[in-house]
Protein backbone atom coordinates (compact mmCIF):
# COMPACT_ATOMS: atom_id res chain seq x y z
CA UNK A 1 0.00 0.00 0.00
CA UNK A 2 2.80 2.33 0.96
CA UNK A 3 4.64 1.61 -2.30
CA UNK A 4 1.45 2.32 -4.26
CA UNK A 5 1.08 5.72 -2.59
CA UNK A 6 4.69 6.55 -3.42
CA UNK A 7 4.15 5.54 -7.05
CA UNK A 8 1.03 7.74 -7.25
CA UNK A 9 2.96 10.65 -5.77
CA UNK A 10 5.81 10.14 -8.24
CA UNK A 11 3.34 10.12 -11.12
CA UNK A 12 1.30 13.11 -9.96
CA UNK A 13 4.23 15.48 -9.42
CA UNK A 14 5.27 15.84 -13.10
CA UNK A 15 1.80 16.92 -14.16
CA UNK A 16 2.14 20.43 -12.79
CA UNK A 17 5.89 20.96 -12.99
CA UNK A 18 7.83 23.63 -14.89
CA UNK A 19 11.02 21.63 -14.91
CA UNK A 20 11.62 18.09 -13.70
CA UNK A 21 14.91 16.69 -12.50
CA UNK A 22 15.05 12.90 -12.66
CA UNK A 23 17.82 10.93 -10.97
CA UNK A 24 18.46 7.23 -10.47
CA UNK A 25 21.44 5.23 -9.30
CA UNK A 26 23.06 2.54 -7.24
CA UNK A 27 25.88 2.64 -4.72
CA UNK A 28 27.71 -0.23 -3.04
CA UNK A 29 29.75 2.40 -1.16
CA UNK A 30 26.60 3.91 0.39
CA UNK A 31 24.63 0.65 0.37
CA UNK A 32 21.57 1.68 -1.56
CA UNK A 33 19.78 2.04 -4.87
CA UNK A 34 16.81 4.09 -5.96
CA UNK A 35 15.60 7.20 -7.67
CA UNK A 36 14.35 10.71 -7.12
CA UNK A 37 12.08 13.15 -8.92
CA UNK A 38 12.30 16.86 -8.20
CA UNK A 39 9.61 19.08 -9.64
CA UNK A 40 10.32 22.79 -9.81
CA UNK A 41 6.91 24.45 -9.62
CA UNK A 42 6.23 28.19 -9.89
CA UNK A 43 5.88 28.60 -6.11
CA UNK A 44 7.46 25.50 -4.61
CA UNK A 45 9.85 22.60 -5.11
CA UNK A 46 8.56 19.06 -4.57
CA UNK A 47 10.87 16.08 -4.20
CA UNK A 48 9.94 12.40 -4.05
CA UNK A 49 12.44 9.57 -3.49
CA UNK A 50 12.13 5.82 -3.23
CA UNK A 51 14.51 2.88 -3.22
CA UNK A 52 16.35 0.37 -1.09
CA UNK A 53 18.91 1.12 1.62
CA UNK A 54 20.74 -1.75 3.33
CA UNK A 55 18.14 -4.15 1.91
CA UNK A 56 15.11 -2.25 3.23
CA UNK A 57 12.56 -0.33 1.20
CA UNK A 58 12.79 3.38 1.99
CA UNK A 59 10.90 6.37 0.70
CA UNK A 60 10.78 10.07 1.27
CA UNK A 61 9.42 13.33 -0.01
CA UNK A 62 9.31 17.02 0.73
CA UNK A 63 7.64 20.24 -0.36
CA UNK A 64 9.65 23.45 0.01
CA UNK A 65 7.93 26.81 -0.38
CA UNK A 66 7.96 30.38 0.88
CA UNK A 67 5.39 31.57 3.41
CA UNK A 68 5.40 35.17 4.67
CA UNK A 69 9.16 35.46 4.17
CA UNK A 70 9.88 32.07 5.72
CA UNK A 71 11.39 29.09 3.91
CA UNK A 72 9.16 26.17 4.84
CA UNK A 73 9.84 22.48 4.16
CA UNK A 74 7.20 19.86 4.89
CA UNK A 75 8.59 16.35 4.74
CA UNK A 76 12.16 15.00 4.88
CA UNK A 77 15.08 17.31 5.53
CA UNK A 78 18.54 17.12 6.97
CA UNK A 79 18.55 19.62 9.80
CA UNK A 80 21.91 20.90 10.95
CA UNK A 81 24.72 23.32 10.39
CA UNK A 82 28.35 23.40 9.39
CA UNK A 83 31.19 25.87 9.30
CA UNK A 84 34.90 25.54 8.53
CA UNK A 85 34.79 21.79 8.30
CA UNK A 86 32.88 21.20 11.53
CA UNK A 87 29.30 20.12 11.04
CA UNK A 88 26.37 18.41 12.71
CA UNK A 89 23.22 17.08 11.17
CA UNK A 90 19.97 15.45 12.22
CA UNK A 91 17.75 13.64 9.73
CA UNK A 92 14.17 14.78 10.27
CA UNK A 93 10.68 14.12 8.95
CA UNK A 94 8.20 16.82 9.80
CA UNK A 95 7.88 20.58 9.49
CA UNK A 96 11.00 22.69 9.05
CA UNK A 97 10.91 26.51 9.06
CA UNK A 98 13.84 28.82 8.33
CA UNK A 99 14.31 32.58 8.12
CA UNK A 100 17.45 34.15 6.67
CA UNK A 101 18.46 37.78 6.97
CA UNK A 102 21.73 39.48 6.04
CA UNK A 103 23.55 38.47 9.22
CA UNK A 104 21.28 35.96 10.95
CA UNK A 105 19.79 32.59 10.12
CA UNK A 106 17.15 31.06 12.42
CA UNK A 107 15.58 27.64 11.90
CA UNK A 108 13.39 25.23 13.79
CA UNK A 109 11.75 21.86 13.25
CA UNK A 110 9.10 19.72 14.83
CA UNK A 111 8.37 16.13 13.88
CA UNK A 112 10.41 12.96 14.07
CA UNK A 113 14.08 12.09 13.80
CA UNK A 114 15.80 8.95 12.63
CA UNK A 115 18.37 7.47 10.30
CA UNK A 116 18.61 9.25 6.99
CA UNK A 117 19.89 8.03 3.65
CA UNK A 118 21.65 10.62 1.51
CA UNK A 119 23.04 10.03 -1.95
CA UNK A 120 23.15 12.06 -5.19
CA UNK A 121 20.21 10.01 -6.50
CA UNK A 122 18.03 9.54 -3.40
CA UNK A 123 17.38 11.28 -0.06
CA UNK A 124 15.11 9.78 2.56
CA UNK A 125 14.55 9.84 6.32
CA UNK A 126 12.98 7.40 8.74
CA UNK A 127 10.67 8.31 11.62
CA UNK A 128 12.05 6.73 14.80
CA UNK A 129 11.72 9.30 17.59
CA UNK A 130 9.63 12.37 18.24
CA UNK A 131 11.90 15.39 18.02
CA UNK A 132 12.05 19.14 18.17
CA UNK A 133 15.01 21.40 17.43
CA UNK A 134 16.24 24.97 17.04
CA UNK A 135 19.24 26.44 15.22
CA UNK A 136 20.69 29.98 15.24
CA UNK A 137 23.64 31.37 13.32
CA UNK A 138 24.76 35.01 13.47
CA UNK A 139 27.59 36.85 11.69
CA UNK A 140 28.99 39.69 13.78
CA UNK A 141 30.53 42.69 12.01
CA UNK A 142 33.96 42.01 13.52
CA UNK A 143 34.14 38.71 11.59
CA UNK A 144 32.97 36.47 14.42
CA UNK A 145 30.45 33.75 13.56
CA UNK A 146 28.29 32.29 16.33
CA UNK A 147 26.25 29.09 15.91
CA UNK A 148 23.94 27.28 18.29
CA UNK A 149 22.05 24.01 17.86
CA UNK A 150 19.59 22.64 20.40
CA UNK A 151 17.51 19.52 19.81
CA UNK A 152 15.69 16.76 21.68
CA UNK A 153 14.92 13.48 19.93
CA UNK A 154 13.78 10.27 21.57
CA UNK A 155 15.01 11.40 24.99
CA UNK A 156 18.48 12.25 23.67
CA UNK A 157 19.58 15.83 24.14
CA UNK A 158 21.78 17.89 21.82
CA UNK A 159 23.11 21.30 22.83
CA UNK A 160 26.13 22.41 20.79
CA UNK A 161 27.56 25.93 20.58
CA UNK A 162 30.12 27.05 18.01
CA UNK A 163 32.34 30.06 17.35
CA UNK A 164 34.49 30.88 14.33
CA UNK A 165 36.80 33.77 13.54
CA UNK A 166 38.91 34.45 10.46
CA UNK A 167 41.43 37.24 9.87
CA UNK A 168 44.12 37.62 7.19
CA UNK A 169 46.70 35.54 9.06
CA UNK A 170 44.72 33.72 11.70
CA UNK A 171 41.61 31.55 11.69
CA UNK A 172 40.01 29.62 14.51
CA UNK A 173 36.78 27.67 14.76
CA UNK A 174 35.38 25.40 17.41
CA UNK A 175 32.18 23.81 18.55
CA UNK A 176 31.39 21.74 21.60
CA UNK A 177 28.71 20.60 24.01
CA UNK A 178 26.42 17.66 24.22
CA UNK A 179 25.62 15.68 21.08
CA UNK A 180 22.85 13.13 21.63
CA UNK A 181 23.83 12.74 25.31
CA UNK A 182 27.57 12.40 24.49
CA UNK A 183 30.26 15.00 25.06
CA UNK A 184 31.46 16.50 21.83
CA UNK A 185 34.26 18.85 20.73
CA UNK A 186 35.60 19.85 17.36
CA UNK A 187 38.10 22.60 16.63
CA UNK A 188 40.51 23.93 14.02
CA UNK A 189 43.26 26.58 14.13
CA UNK A 190 44.97 28.01 11.03
CA UNK A 191 47.91 30.37 11.15
CA UNK A 192 49.52 31.88 8.06
CA UNK A 193 52.34 34.22 9.18
CA UNK A 194 53.69 34.55 5.61
CA UNK A 195 52.06 34.26 2.21
CA UNK A 196 54.20 31.19 1.55
CA UNK A 197 53.88 29.50 4.95
CA UNK A 198 50.87 28.14 6.84
CA UNK A 199 50.19 25.92 9.86
CA UNK A 200 47.02 24.05 10.78
CA UNK A 201 45.86 22.02 13.79
CA UNK A 202 42.56 20.11 14.11
CA UNK A 203 40.68 18.05 16.69
CA UNK A 204 37.47 16.21 15.84
CA UNK A 205 35.11 13.87 17.65
CA UNK A 206 33.21 11.42 15.43
CA UNK A 207 30.26 9.24 16.37
CA UNK A 208 30.29 6.24 14.05
CA UNK A 209 29.80 2.72 15.42
CA UNK A 210 32.20 3.87 18.16
CA UNK A 211 33.29 7.17 19.56
CA UNK A 212 36.39 8.21 17.59
CA UNK A 213 38.76 11.12 18.13
CA UNK A 214 41.05 12.37 15.38
CA UNK A 215 43.79 15.01 15.71
CA UNK A 216 46.18 16.51 13.19
CA UNK A 217 48.98 19.05 13.02
CA UNK A 218 50.29 20.18 9.66
CA UNK A 219 52.53 22.77 8.00
CA UNK A 220 52.66 23.83 4.36
CA UNK A 221 54.96 26.19 2.50
CA UNK A 222 55.30 27.26 -1.13
CA UNK A 223 58.33 29.16 -2.39
CA UNK A 224 57.95 29.83 -6.08
CA UNK A 225 58.06 26.46 -7.84
CA UNK A 226 58.86 24.49 -4.69
CA UNK A 227 56.29 23.21 -2.15
CA UNK A 228 57.00 21.55 1.20
CA UNK A 229 54.54 19.86 3.57
CA UNK A 230 54.66 17.93 6.81
CA UNK A 231 51.92 16.54 9.07
CA UNK A 232 51.37 14.45 12.17
CA UNK A 233 48.06 12.59 12.59
CA UNK A 234 46.46 10.56 15.37
CA UNK A 235 43.25 8.58 15.68
CA UNK A 236 41.89 7.02 18.87
CA UNK A 237 38.92 4.66 19.03
CA UNK A 238 37.67 2.61 21.99
CA UNK A 239 40.67 0.28 22.13
CA UNK A 240 43.32 1.32 19.64
CA UNK A 241 45.45 4.34 18.91
CA UNK A 242 46.58 4.92 15.31
CA UNK A 243 49.39 7.36 14.59
CA UNK A 244 50.93 8.62 11.38
CA UNK A 245 53.43 11.15 10.08
CA UNK A 246 54.14 12.39 6.58
CA UNK A 247 56.55 14.78 4.91
CA UNK A 248 57.02 15.70 1.29
CA UNK A 249 58.45 18.08 -1.27
CA UNK A 250 57.32 19.07 -4.75
CA UNK A 251 58.80 20.92 -7.69
CA UNK A 252 56.88 22.40 -10.63
CA UNK A 253 58.70 22.88 -13.93
CA UNK A 254 56.38 24.22 -16.62
CA UNK A 255 53.49 21.79 -16.98
CA UNK A 256 55.34 19.03 -15.08
CA UNK A 257 55.12 18.51 -11.32
CA UNK A 258 57.46 16.16 -9.45
CA UNK A 259 56.67 15.12 -5.85
CA UNK A 260 58.21 12.84 -3.27
CA UNK A 261 56.32 11.97 -0.08
CA UNK A 262 57.36 9.91 2.93
CA UNK A 263 54.67 8.24 5.09
CA UNK A 264 55.05 6.44 8.41
CA UNK A 265 52.29 4.84 10.43
CA UNK A 266 52.38 2.05 13.04
CA UNK A 267 56.08 1.35 12.27
CA UNK A 268 55.42 0.87 8.57
CA UNK A 269 57.06 3.26 6.12
CA UNK A 270 56.24 4.13 2.55
CA UNK A 271 57.96 6.35 -0.01
CA UNK A 272 55.92 7.58 -2.98
CA UNK A 273 57.39 9.47 -5.94
CA UNK A 274 54.96 11.09 -8.37
CA UNK A 275 55.51 12.74 -11.75
CA UNK A 276 52.52 14.53 -13.22
CA UNK A 277 52.29 16.14 -16.63
CA UNK A 278 49.41 18.45 -17.52
CA UNK A 279 48.57 19.40 -21.09
CA UNK A 280 45.39 21.40 -21.54
CA UNK A 281 42.59 18.89 -20.83
CA UNK A 282 44.90 15.91 -20.31
CA UNK A 283 46.75 14.77 -17.21
CA UNK A 284 49.24 11.87 -17.09
CA UNK A 285 50.64 10.61 -13.79
CA UNK A 286 53.44 8.13 -13.09
CA UNK A 287 53.94 6.73 -9.57
CA UNK A 288 56.87 4.85 -8.04
CA UNK A 289 56.03 3.27 -4.69
CA UNK A 290 58.65 1.89 -2.29
CA UNK A 291 57.30 -0.16 0.64
CA UNK A 292 58.60 -3.18 2.63
CA UNK A 293 61.74 -3.21 0.45
CA UNK A 294 59.71 -3.62 -2.71
CA UNK A 295 59.27 -1.17 -5.56
CA UNK A 296 56.02 -1.01 -7.52
CA UNK A 297 54.95 1.19 -10.42
CA UNK A 298 51.56 2.62 -11.25
CA UNK A 299 50.12 4.98 -13.82
CA UNK A 300 47.15 7.28 -13.73
CA UNK A 301 45.73 10.20 -15.62
CA UNK A 302 42.64 11.77 -16.96
CA UNK A 303 40.83 13.79 -19.56
CA UNK A 304 38.45 16.59 -18.64
CA UNK A 305 36.22 17.75 -21.48
CA UNK A 306 32.77 19.26 -21.69
CA UNK A 307 31.09 16.01 -22.71
CA UNK A 308 33.37 13.47 -21.08
CA UNK A 309 35.60 13.40 -18.01
CA UNK A 310 37.66 10.34 -17.12
CA UNK A 311 40.29 10.03 -14.43
CA UNK A 312 42.25 7.31 -12.64
CA UNK A 313 43.95 8.50 -9.45
CA UNK A 314 46.16 6.87 -6.86
CA UNK A 315 46.29 8.54 -3.47
CA UNK A 316 47.53 7.87 0.04
CA UNK A 317 44.92 8.45 2.76
CA UNK A 318 45.10 8.29 6.55
CA UNK A 319 42.52 5.96 8.11
CA UNK A 320 42.28 6.76 11.84
CA UNK A 321 40.24 3.61 12.68
CA UNK A 322 41.49 0.15 13.63
CA UNK A 323 45.23 0.81 13.36
CA UNK A 324 45.11 1.08 9.56
CA UNK A 325 47.09 4.33 9.29
CA UNK A 326 48.26 5.39 5.81
CA UNK A 327 46.84 3.27 3.00
CA UNK A 328 47.00 3.52 -0.77
CA UNK A 329 43.74 3.75 -2.65
CA UNK A 330 42.86 3.83 -6.32
CA UNK A 331 39.84 5.69 -7.60
CA UNK A 332 38.20 5.81 -11.03
CA UNK A 333 35.83 8.61 -12.01
CA UNK A 334 33.85 8.79 -15.25
CA UNK A 335 31.35 11.53 -16.10
CA UNK A 336 29.50 11.63 -19.40
CA UNK A 337 27.16 14.40 -20.50
CA UNK A 338 24.69 13.70 -23.32
CA UNK A 339 22.45 16.69 -24.02
CA UNK A 340 20.90 17.51 -20.61
CA UNK A 341 21.68 14.10 -19.11
CA UNK A 342 24.71 13.42 -16.94
CA UNK A 343 25.90 9.89 -16.17
CA UNK A 344 28.44 9.53 -13.35
CA UNK A 345 30.46 6.54 -12.22
CA UNK A 346 32.91 6.58 -9.36
CA UNK A 347 34.72 3.69 -7.75
CA UNK A 348 37.33 3.20 -5.06
CA UNK A 349 39.61 0.22 -4.68
CA UNK A 350 40.88 -0.12 -1.11
CA UNK A 351 44.23 -1.74 -0.16
CA UNK A 352 42.60 -5.19 0.20
CA UNK A 353 41.44 -4.89 -3.46
CA UNK A 354 37.76 -4.49 -2.59
CA UNK A 355 35.99 -2.25 -5.05
CA UNK A 356 33.05 -0.09 -4.06
CA UNK A 357 31.24 2.13 -6.52
CA UNK A 358 28.55 4.74 -6.91
CA UNK A 359 26.85 5.27 -10.25
CA UNK A 360 23.92 7.47 -11.10
CA UNK A 361 22.31 9.39 -13.92
CA UNK A 362 20.49 12.69 -13.75
CA UNK A 363 18.48 14.54 -16.37
CA UNK A 364 16.22 17.54 -16.74
CA UNK A 365 12.94 17.50 -18.62
CA UNK A 366 10.37 20.21 -19.26
CA UNK A 367 7.10 19.67 -17.38
CA UNK A 368 3.59 20.60 -18.41
CA UNK A 369 4.09 24.22 -17.30
CA UNK A 370 7.50 24.60 -18.89
CA UNK A 371 6.32 27.03 -21.54
CA UNK A 372 9.46 26.71 -23.56
CA UNK A 373 10.76 24.42 -26.20
CA UNK A 374 14.07 22.72 -25.54
CA UNK A 375 14.97 20.69 -28.56
CA UNK A 376 17.76 18.23 -28.23
CA UNK A 377 20.93 18.86 -30.19
CA UNK A 378 24.65 18.31 -30.05
CA UNK A 379 27.38 20.61 -28.88
CA UNK A 380 30.10 22.16 -31.01
CA UNK A 381 32.96 20.07 -32.24
CA UNK A 382 36.61 20.99 -32.46
CA UNK A 383 38.65 20.94 -35.62
CA UNK A 384 41.28 22.48 -37.82
CA UNK A 385 38.98 24.43 -40.16
CA UNK A 386 36.70 27.31 -39.29
CA UNK A 387 33.19 28.00 -40.60
CA UNK A 388 32.30 31.68 -40.12
CA UNK A 389 29.21 33.74 -40.77
CA UNK A 390 27.28 36.89 -40.00
CA UNK A 391 23.63 37.29 -39.03
CA UNK A 392 21.90 40.60 -39.84
CA UNK A 393 18.34 41.91 -39.67
CA UNK A 394 16.33 43.59 -42.42
CA UNK A 395 18.21 46.87 -41.80
CA UNK A 396 21.62 45.25 -42.00
CA UNK A 397 22.12 45.48 -38.24
CA UNK A 398 23.80 42.55 -36.50
CA UNK A 399 21.55 40.09 -34.65
CA UNK A 400 22.90 38.63 -31.44
CA UNK A 401 21.87 35.24 -30.11
CA UNK A 402 20.77 33.70 -33.41
CA UNK A 403 21.05 29.90 -33.33
CA UNK A 404 22.63 28.20 -36.34
CA UNK A 405 22.85 24.44 -36.65
CA UNK A 406 25.70 22.91 -38.60
CA UNK A 407 24.90 19.84 -40.69
CA UNK A 408 22.12 18.78 -38.33
CA UNK A 409 24.54 18.57 -35.41
CA UNK A 410 26.35 21.28 -33.48
CA UNK A 411 24.57 24.54 -32.69
CA UNK A 412 26.39 27.87 -32.48
CA UNK A 413 25.13 31.34 -31.55
CA UNK A 414 25.93 34.76 -33.05
CA UNK A 415 27.68 37.38 -30.88
CA UNK A 416 26.92 41.09 -30.46
CA UNK A 417 28.48 41.78 -33.90
CA UNK A 418 26.19 39.15 -35.40
CA UNK A 419 29.19 36.93 -36.07
CA UNK A 420 29.46 33.22 -35.38
CA UNK A 421 32.08 30.58 -35.94
CA UNK A 422 32.57 26.88 -35.45
CA UNK A 423 35.59 24.66 -35.81
CA UNK A 424 35.14 21.66 -38.11
CA UNK A 425 37.35 18.70 -38.89
CA UNK A 426 37.05 18.67 -42.71
CA UNK A 427 37.53 21.36 -45.35
CA UNK A 428 34.18 20.94 -47.05
CA UNK A 429 30.81 22.66 -47.31
CA UNK A 430 28.37 22.15 -44.44
CA UNK A 431 24.62 22.73 -44.49
CA UNK A 432 23.55 25.62 -42.25
CA UNK A 433 20.12 25.55 -40.65
CA UNK A 434 18.70 28.52 -38.74
CA UNK A 435 16.80 27.43 -35.59
CA UNK A 436 14.44 30.35 -35.02
CA UNK A 437 12.85 28.68 -31.97
CA UNK A 438 16.24 28.35 -30.29
CA UNK A 439 17.29 32.01 -30.47
CA UNK A 440 18.78 33.47 -27.32
CA UNK A 441 17.74 36.88 -28.68
CA UNK A 442 14.27 38.04 -27.66
CA UNK A 443 11.48 38.41 -30.19
CA UNK A 444 10.16 36.38 -33.07
CA UNK A 445 12.22 36.03 -36.19
CA UNK A 446 11.86 34.77 -39.74
CA UNK A 447 14.65 33.93 -42.18
CA UNK A 448 14.62 36.03 -45.34
CA UNK A 449 17.81 34.63 -46.87
CA UNK A 450 20.50 32.23 -45.81
CA UNK A 451 23.65 30.81 -47.33
CA UNK A 452 22.65 27.18 -47.66
CA UNK A 453 26.17 25.86 -47.23
CA UNK A 454 28.89 27.18 -44.97
CA UNK A 455 32.44 26.59 -46.12
CA UNK A 456 35.79 27.24 -44.44
CA UNK A 457 37.24 30.52 -45.71
CA UNK A 458 33.89 31.89 -46.96
CA UNK A 459 31.81 34.09 -44.68
CA UNK A 460 28.17 32.93 -44.70
CA UNK A 461 25.49 35.62 -44.51
CA UNK A 462 22.11 35.05 -42.89
CA UNK A 463 19.40 37.70 -43.15
CA UNK A 464 16.50 37.75 -40.74
CA UNK A 465 13.34 39.74 -40.30
CA UNK A 466 11.72 40.45 -36.98
CA UNK A 467 8.10 39.32 -36.99
CA UNK A 468 5.51 41.85 -35.86
CA UNK A 469 7.42 44.92 -37.09
CA UNK A 470 6.61 47.11 -40.09
Amino acid at each position, binding site marked *: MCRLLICLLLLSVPASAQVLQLSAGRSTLLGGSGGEITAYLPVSTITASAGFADGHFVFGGSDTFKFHGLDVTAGDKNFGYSFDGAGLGVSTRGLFVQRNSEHTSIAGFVGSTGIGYGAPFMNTATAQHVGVGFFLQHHFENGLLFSSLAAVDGGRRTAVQGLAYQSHVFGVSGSGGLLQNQKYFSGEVDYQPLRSLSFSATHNDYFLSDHLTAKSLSAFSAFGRVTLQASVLEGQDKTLKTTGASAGAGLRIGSTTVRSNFYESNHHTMLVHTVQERFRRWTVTGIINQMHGQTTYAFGGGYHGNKLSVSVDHSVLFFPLGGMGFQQTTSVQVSLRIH*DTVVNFGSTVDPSMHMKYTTYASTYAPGALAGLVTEKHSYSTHGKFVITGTVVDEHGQPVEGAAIQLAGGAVVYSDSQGKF*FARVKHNRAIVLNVLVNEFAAPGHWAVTSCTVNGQPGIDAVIRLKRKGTQ
Partner: protein
Amino acid sequence: MKKLLVLAFLELWFFGLSVAAQTVSPVIVECGKKCNGAFSVTNNGLTPLAVTVEARSFSMDTQGHATYRTLDEAADLKLDEGSARIAPKGTHTFSYQLKCSAVPCSVTLLSSMVVGHTADGIWVRVQLPHTVYACEKQKDCRKSVRAAAGITFN
Protein backbone atom coordinates in the same frame (compact mmCIF):
# COMPACT_ATOMS: atom_id res chain seq x y z
CA MET B 1 -1.19 49.81 -36.49
CA LYS B 2 0.59 46.94 -34.98
CA LYS B 3 1.93 47.56 -31.57
CA LEU B 4 5.67 47.84 -31.68
CA LEU B 5 7.38 45.57 -29.24
CA VAL B 6 10.01 47.50 -27.41
CA LEU B 7 12.88 45.38 -26.24
CA ALA B 8 15.81 46.47 -24.23
CA PHE B 9 18.84 44.83 -22.87
CA LEU B 10 20.29 45.58 -19.51
CA GLU B 11 24.00 45.13 -19.33
CA LEU B 12 24.82 43.83 -15.89
CA TRP B 13 28.47 43.64 -15.04
CA PHE B 14 29.89 41.07 -12.76
CA PHE B 15 30.39 43.24 -9.72
CA GLY B 16 26.92 44.71 -9.80
CA LEU B 17 25.25 41.46 -10.52
CA SER B 18 21.94 40.87 -8.84
CA VAL B 19 21.17 37.71 -10.81
CA ALA B 20 23.44 35.21 -9.02
CA ALA B 21 22.50 32.22 -11.13
CA GLN B 22 25.42 32.09 -13.55
CA THR B 23 29.13 32.11 -12.82
CA VAL B 24 32.46 32.34 -14.64
CA SER B 25 35.62 30.87 -13.16
CA PRO B 26 38.37 31.96 -12.89
CA VAL B 27 37.72 35.68 -13.21
CA ILE B 28 41.38 36.69 -13.59
CA VAL B 29 44.48 34.88 -14.86
CA GLU B 30 48.07 36.02 -15.32
CA CYS B 31 50.47 34.56 -17.87
CA GLY B 32 53.52 35.17 -20.00
CA LYS B 33 53.61 36.15 -23.69
CA LYS B 34 52.06 32.85 -24.70
CA CYS B 35 49.09 31.58 -22.80
CA ASN B 36 47.11 28.34 -23.02
CA GLY B 37 44.10 28.99 -20.84
CA ALA B 38 40.55 28.01 -20.12
CA PHE B 39 37.57 29.28 -18.19
CA SER B 40 34.31 27.68 -17.20
CA VAL B 41 30.78 29.06 -17.36
CA THR B 42 28.30 27.43 -14.99
CA ASN B 43 24.58 27.49 -15.58
CA ASN B 44 22.97 27.21 -12.16
CA GLY B 45 19.54 27.64 -13.67
CA LEU B 46 16.98 24.99 -14.55
CA THR B 47 16.72 25.75 -18.24
CA PRO B 48 19.37 25.45 -20.97
CA LEU B 49 21.44 28.59 -21.48
CA ALA B 50 23.01 29.94 -24.68
CA VAL B 51 26.34 31.64 -24.10
CA THR B 52 28.42 33.62 -26.60
CA VAL B 53 32.03 34.61 -25.95
CA GLU B 54 33.63 37.79 -27.30
CA ALA B 55 37.16 39.04 -26.82
CA ARG B 56 37.98 42.66 -26.02
CA SER B 57 41.15 44.59 -25.28
CA PHE B 58 40.82 47.19 -22.60
CA SER B 59 42.57 50.01 -20.81
CA MET B 60 41.96 51.37 -17.33
CA ASP B 61 41.82 54.86 -15.87
CA THR B 62 43.30 55.74 -12.49
CA GLN B 63 40.03 54.76 -10.78
CA GLY B 64 40.24 51.25 -12.23
CA HIS B 65 37.35 51.74 -14.66
CA ALA B 66 37.88 49.72 -17.81
CA THR B 67 37.29 50.98 -21.34
CA TYR B 68 36.75 48.12 -23.78
CA ARG B 69 37.67 48.13 -27.45
CA THR B 70 38.04 45.62 -30.24
CA LEU B 71 40.93 43.23 -29.84
CA ASP B 72 44.34 44.83 -30.40
CA GLU B 73 46.42 43.57 -33.33
CA ALA B 74 49.17 42.66 -30.88
CA ALA B 75 46.87 40.06 -29.32
CA ASP B 76 46.45 36.88 -31.35
CA LEU B 77 43.61 34.94 -29.74
CA LYS B 78 42.40 31.52 -30.83
CA LEU B 79 39.17 30.45 -29.14
CA ASP B 80 38.13 26.82 -29.44
CA GLU B 81 34.46 27.79 -29.39
CA GLY B 82 32.65 31.10 -29.68
CA SER B 83 29.38 29.92 -28.20
CA ALA B 84 27.78 27.02 -26.39
CA ARG B 85 24.49 25.77 -25.11
CA ILE B 86 24.91 24.84 -21.45
CA ALA B 87 22.60 22.24 -19.94
CA PRO B 88 20.69 22.96 -16.69
CA LYS B 89 23.09 22.88 -13.72
CA GLY B 90 25.84 22.24 -16.25
CA THR B 91 29.31 23.69 -16.76
CA HIS B 92 31.03 24.39 -20.05
CA THR B 93 34.76 25.04 -20.43
CA PHE B 94 36.01 27.39 -23.15
CA SER B 95 39.68 26.91 -24.06
CA TYR B 96 41.88 29.47 -25.78
CA GLN B 97 45.42 30.23 -26.87
CA LEU B 98 46.67 33.81 -26.56
CA LYS B 99 49.91 35.09 -28.09
CA CYS B 100 50.87 38.71 -27.54
CA SER B 101 53.48 40.30 -29.81
CA ALA B 102 53.62 43.33 -27.49
CA VAL B 103 53.36 43.15 -23.71
CA PRO B 104 51.74 43.90 -21.42
CA CYS B 105 48.51 42.98 -23.14
CA SER B 106 45.21 42.70 -21.35
CA VAL B 107 42.32 40.81 -22.87
CA THR B 108 38.86 40.22 -21.49
CA LEU B 109 36.68 37.37 -22.71
CA LEU B 110 33.08 38.40 -22.16
CA SER B 111 30.55 35.60 -21.76
CA SER B 112 27.12 36.96 -22.71
CA MET B 113 23.89 35.26 -21.82
CA VAL B 114 20.22 36.18 -21.69
CA VAL B 115 19.08 35.07 -18.26
CA GLY B 116 15.42 36.06 -18.34
CA HIS B 117 13.19 39.09 -18.33
CA THR B 118 11.60 41.39 -15.81
CA ALA B 119 7.87 41.54 -15.08
CA ASP B 120 7.72 44.52 -17.47
CA GLY B 121 9.11 42.41 -20.30
CA ILE B 122 12.60 43.90 -20.31
CA TRP B 123 15.08 41.21 -21.21
CA VAL B 124 18.07 40.88 -18.94
CA ARG B 125 21.44 40.04 -20.44
CA VAL B 126 24.42 39.28 -18.25
CA GLN B 127 28.03 39.70 -19.36
CA LEU B 128 30.58 37.99 -17.15
CA PRO B 129 34.28 38.71 -17.79
CA HIS B 130 37.27 36.40 -17.74
CA THR B 131 40.34 38.66 -17.87
CA VAL B 132 43.80 37.59 -19.03
CA TYR B 133 46.85 39.68 -18.12
CA ALA B 134 49.85 38.76 -20.30
CA CYS B 135 53.30 40.15 -19.50
CA GLU B 136 56.94 39.28 -20.11
CA LYS B 137 56.80 37.39 -16.81
CA GLN B 138 53.70 35.84 -15.30
CA LYS B 139 54.35 36.86 -11.71
CA ASP B 140 52.62 40.07 -10.56
CA CYS B 141 51.50 40.83 -14.11
CA ARG B 142 48.15 42.28 -13.06
CA LYS B 143 49.86 44.37 -10.44
CA SER B 144 52.26 45.87 -12.99
CA VAL B 145 49.43 46.59 -15.47
CA ARG B 146 47.47 48.37 -12.76
CA ALA B 147 50.56 50.27 -11.63
CA ALA B 148 51.21 51.38 -15.23
CA ALA B 149 47.62 52.70 -15.35
CA GLY B 150 48.28 54.74 -12.21
CA ILE B 151 46.00 52.67 -9.97
CA THR B 152 47.26 52.86 -6.41
CA PHE B 153 44.60 50.82 -4.56
CA ASN B 154 44.05 47.04 -4.56
